[in-house]
């Protein structure tokens, strides 16, 4: 159990490599962030520009969907090692969430 975690001290080159990898990853995160801001801007601009509702709604929902995927996979590392079960349960949650929303917007009737 917990008490048997042993401490592994890395060699200098191992350490440098890991550090470099993290720094690269951070750059990726910055790019992700830029995309998220960009998507948000598009969404707001579309609404401000007053396009047709039928055009706007699907697009801004798509933007939101992409942002969520970015958050989950880049900021929250959902594809990382040891996330298998976690991802499975999260998708089950998303599935239940989806049918709940679907039901309440369609068959509460009217």
């Amino acid at each position, binding site marked *: *159990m*917990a*008490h048997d*975690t042993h*401490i*592994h*001290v*890395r060699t*200098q080159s191992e*350490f440098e490599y*890991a*550090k470099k990898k*993290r720094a690269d*990853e*951070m750059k990726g*995160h*910055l790019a992700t*962030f830029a995309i*998220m*801001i960009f998507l*948000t801007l598009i*969404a*707001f601009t579309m*609404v*401000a520009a007053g396009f047709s*509702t039928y055009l*706007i*709604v699907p697009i*801004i*929902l798509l*933007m*939101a969907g992409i*942002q*969520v995927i970015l*958050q*989950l996979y880049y*900021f*929250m590392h959902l594809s990382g*090692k*040891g*996330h298998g*079960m*976690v991802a499975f*349960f*999260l998708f*089950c*949650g*998303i599935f*239940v*969430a*989806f049918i*709940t*929303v679907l*039901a*309440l*917007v369609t068959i*509460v009737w009217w």
Partner: protein
Amino acid sequence: MDINQKYTPQSWPDHPETATMEGKNKFIGFWLLLAAETVTFATLFATYLALKDKGPSGMEFSAAGLFELPLVFAMTMILLTSSLTSVYAMYHMKNHNFKAMQAWLGITVLLGATFLGLEIYEFNHYLHLGFGFTNSAFSSAFYVLVGTHGAHVLFGLSWFIALMLRNAKRGLNMYNAPKFYLASLYWHFIDVVWVFIFTVVYLMGVIG
């Protein structure tokens, strides 16, 4: 695990949040909680959508007439940025750079608090207009959905602050690394929810 065990950047593991059994348990448990939270918010969204613009006959307020985008835009930008700053904090945690982590967390907290302040201002503004919690089914659903998100922000902020204060003197160790990590996951989740709030409630609200 020994809470007094000191680490150097070299001996600090790649994934401090899941390096111990406790950490791993917390990590999985917390993600499961997020799955449950997903359903919770979905239920709130679903109810909101079902009750959108529904009220007693002659109801004064509707989504299209009420919401104003500039404020929401500012709030969105602030919260998105705070998501990034918390990523920076985690970056420094993985580098075992405690000071930098605390600093970035501090910025995150400031941004989060600003967001919360704006939200309180917004609610207050609506109340002054006469759009109260008990006005209509629409108002109830709106306040509960957005308010629940606000409560999550408040909780996230308190969590960050508590962790920062509690560990200010101790520095990073295997015992608190998972906690920092989970708090930041929570913060991202809050951001995810907000993405849907600004899209579904505000943007789709304004276009009617």
